[in-house]
């Protein structure tokens, strides 16, 4: 089996399981919606410019729901010791990691696709920026968050307090991606020129490459007990 087919097989299995159970998407969606509603009541967006607070609100919703998605992704594999079934197979273990990242990115992207329009309506925001760049920023930062999150989830899922350890390890490591995500989104929503935030996009891309490459190289050892 080729490496890419193994990645797609793992990701496809996760998607199929999720389509059947609908455990993750519903939880993630309601959690993200709840964040929007809370912020909508906490701040008067008729007075405060959405561009000032909105990107932070959106990324709080995406990052926290992302933590839920990543944690659940490995919890499924630990139940019935399913992860052993995959690790016993001849596929490269990094293909398993990339498959998990791909599935998490798709789950987070599905939530983002539904939440962004809701936020635009809820906060009565008139978007005048460049949509393609906004999508690129969402994608780059979602991939970065999923890459580092999946690596830490693999490390912590076999520990007794894994669900507690995951956010403790993940949030400090995800600070660069959260910072870049909020900054880029703010500049794009404000309709500023690319030169104002191009370096943030570059940073997100570099973060993705570094963490994906490091995880692919280290994943075999991460799963060692």
């Amino acid at each position, binding site marked *: 089996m080729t490496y890419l087919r193994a990645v797609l097989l793992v990701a496809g299995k996760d998607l199929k399981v999720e389509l059947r159970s609908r455990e993750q998407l519903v939880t993630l969606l309601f959690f993200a919606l709840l964040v929007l509603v809370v912020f909508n009541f906490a701040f008067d967006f008729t007075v405060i410019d959405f561009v000032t607070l909105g990107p932070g609100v959106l990324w709080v919703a995406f990052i926290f729901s992302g933590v839920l998605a990543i944690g659940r992704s490995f919890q499924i594999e630990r139940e*019935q010791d399913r992860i052993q*079934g995959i*690790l*016993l197979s001849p596929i490269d273990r990094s293909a398993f990691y990339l498959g998990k990242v791909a599935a998490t990115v798709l789950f987070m992207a599905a939530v983002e696709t539904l939440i962004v329009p809701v936020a635009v309506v809820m906060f009565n925001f008139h978007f005048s920026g460049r949509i393609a760049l906004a999508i690129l920023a969402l994608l780059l930062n979602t991939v970065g968050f999923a890459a580092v999150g999946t690596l830490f989830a693999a490390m912590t899922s076999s520990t007794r307090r894994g669900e507690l350890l995951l956010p403790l390890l993940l949030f400090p490591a995800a600070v660069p991606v959260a910072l870049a995500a909020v900054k880029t989104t703010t500049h794009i929503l404000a309709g500023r020129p690319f030169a104002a935030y191009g370096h943030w996009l570059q940073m997100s891309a570099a973060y993705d490459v570094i963490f994906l490459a490091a995880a692919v190289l280290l994943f075999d050892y991460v799963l060692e007990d």
Partner: protein
Amino acid sequence: MAADRDGPPVVEARGLAKRYGPLAALDGIDLTVPAGQAVVLLGPNGAGKSTLLRLLATLTRPSGGRLRLFGEEVLSSDAGRLRSRIGFLSHQTFLYEHLTGRENLLFYARLYGLSDPERAARAALGAARLSDRQDDRVGAYSRGMQQRLAIARSLLHGPEMILLDEPFTGLDRESSARLEERLRQLRATGRTCVMATHDLDQGLRAADRVLVLRGGRLEFDAPARGLDSARLEALLVTPETAAGPRPL
């Protein structure tokens, strides 16, 4: 796939050790398992049975000593190639409850890169007598049916060595009898089996050879023929069984 009885031993361990920090889970195991032999591992909890199976399954690396599987050094060989020759069955099924029986087998068949996953899954479902339930979700299966499917999963790729970790746990009498029958069939096809269990009677019935582990050391090694469970029970409850491993 039947074992090559003229080939190298399926398992060859010399001074095999596994440590978790200061704890020695396995300490200086010397073991040779020829092709086609059925071995049962006995011992109290924490004796190192599951650790030994995990080492044989290449799920973890040895901390010391040498381990050769199918004549290949584990640490320097292509782990994927070795894994494709090994099947693993545990009391955990490794199955996804939201997928159907057929989808579970197709997933594993594809993981193993089988040339015709559909055909392999169909044949395995037939052998497990689950063809009529193949499109039901595994979550709707009884424990016995799930274990039959788990056996089918572990044999899907035609492994030469089957590792079994407490496979009878949680099974009722009828399901246990079926699993025993399946193990007898596997032995008849010449596959090498290594099984860890707490059930002495079932272990003795399923094996050609009995190993007793205690505190990470191999304390007893003898042919299963002629041993009765009462004698083994006495060995297992005695603090110090033998001075060291006994040769076959």
